[in-house]
């Protein structure tokens, strides 16, 4: 069962804070502990910053996933209609962004979360879907 989606538009740097805020509230609601809340917030930061820096605008959507008697989790979808990524394998490599001080980058998001999927098309945009499961 999925709850109705929540969504935060990313247009200015300040929106990143709002996106983190909502993500943390939802994470708390689902029952994530302090460490995982912080990890989810950091992952949202990375996703939102990518949108802000490279695509100018886009959005982050949130879905609470509840599988009855099974597990719960938080799904984040970051979507933009920006320039896209021409070489995904390059940006998914460790050492690509952190060395330049740009932050944890997409490998960082992948580490902070449990599941990670990326679809991107040059000049069309990028869509990243990532899930953190409650353990």
């Amino acid at each position, binding site marked *: 069962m999925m709850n109705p989606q929540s969504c935060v538009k990313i247009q200015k740097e300040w929106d990143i804070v709002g996106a983190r805020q909502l993500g943390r509230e939802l994470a708390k609601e689902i029952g994530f502990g*302090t*460490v995982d809340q*912080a*990890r989810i917030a950091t992952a949202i930061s990375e996703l939102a910053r990518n949108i802000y820096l490279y695509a100018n605008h886009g959005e982050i959507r949130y879905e609470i996933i509840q599988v009855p008697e099974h597990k719960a989790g938080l799904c984040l979808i970051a979507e933009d209609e920006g320039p896209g990524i021409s070489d995904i394998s390059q940006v998914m490599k460790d*050492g690509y962004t*952190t060395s330049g001080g740009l932050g944890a980058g997409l490998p*960082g998001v992948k580490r*902070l979360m449990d599941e990670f999927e990326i679809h991107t098309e040059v000049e069309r945009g990028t869509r990243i879907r990532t899930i953190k499961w409650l353990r």
Partner: protein
Amino acid sequence: MENFFKERAEEYKKLLAEYIETQDEKALYEVELVSKAFIKHNILPEEIINLHIKALKEIYPDLVVSYEHSMDFLLEAMISYGLAHQEIQVLREQQIALKSEISIAAEMQQKLLRTNKPEVPGVDIGVISVPANQMNGDYYNFLLNTDGSIGIAMADVIGKGIPAALCMSMIKYSLDSFPEETMRPPVILNNLNRVVERNVESNMFITMMYAQYFPNSGRLAFSSAGHEPGYYYNAVEDRFTEITTRGLVLGVSEDAEYEEKELLINKDDMVILLTDGVTECRDGERFIEIHEVLEVIKQYSHLSSQEMVEQVYKHFERLQDFKLQDDFSLLILRKTV
């Protein structure tokens, strides 16, 4: 894993309480051990801070709220460190894998570039070539021609590491493919120059000394393509003379011309070919002088050529504290009859 963390968490709490009570060094030492165990199990910094917060709350149930918030703040600040730590971990593993791949490549290079030292009566040849890093940018090669002459190439790629090493394989296969009638030193350098000029990026150059020795007559013909000068040792006069010719390094210009010179060698005379890794050895901060190299060679001249080059290498290896700055290659040919 879960169990490990729970046990250590208990221990951490106990040590923390003990330290707050006593400020005892023993607790600090023990937490050092706990910390090492955490590192070994890839526990991230934010988890340790979380553990600290929980332990503190258990020891002080009525902890000041503002202090608690400050700890949450610290935890948040550590998330990125945790990520950076994980990334470095992965990069380290990749580096180990890469190193082992390079050492396989280095072995392969040695096999590819293997050349047999000719055993010809009346000639005693010794040669050593040691790379500064894993892959060797120096190269020597012997060719035994049907007219009984011995062709000797001594080369150095300007530039180090893997690209230099790959470049040398090309030189070897070019040398092997030349028809024998072209085997005069200037002709060989001319041909190699064209190969290098056409196939190698313009930022890579090769220097080479090519010598052709006729054991029956004792005649030595040689040509240099911008290579470190060699030396001729006259046994009767007990004197070293520099041997070199004019000629551009390989790969610079298509129309480079190579000069040829000749020497007549008598019994106990020596011809020494080397690369700049020998002449540019360092003694502390100081580059050694060539006469020091020649002195050392003379010091071991009672030995066979092979023992000589090995002893000279050991001498300079020791002088440089066993850390070579550059690939080291030294070849000695001595007429024994």
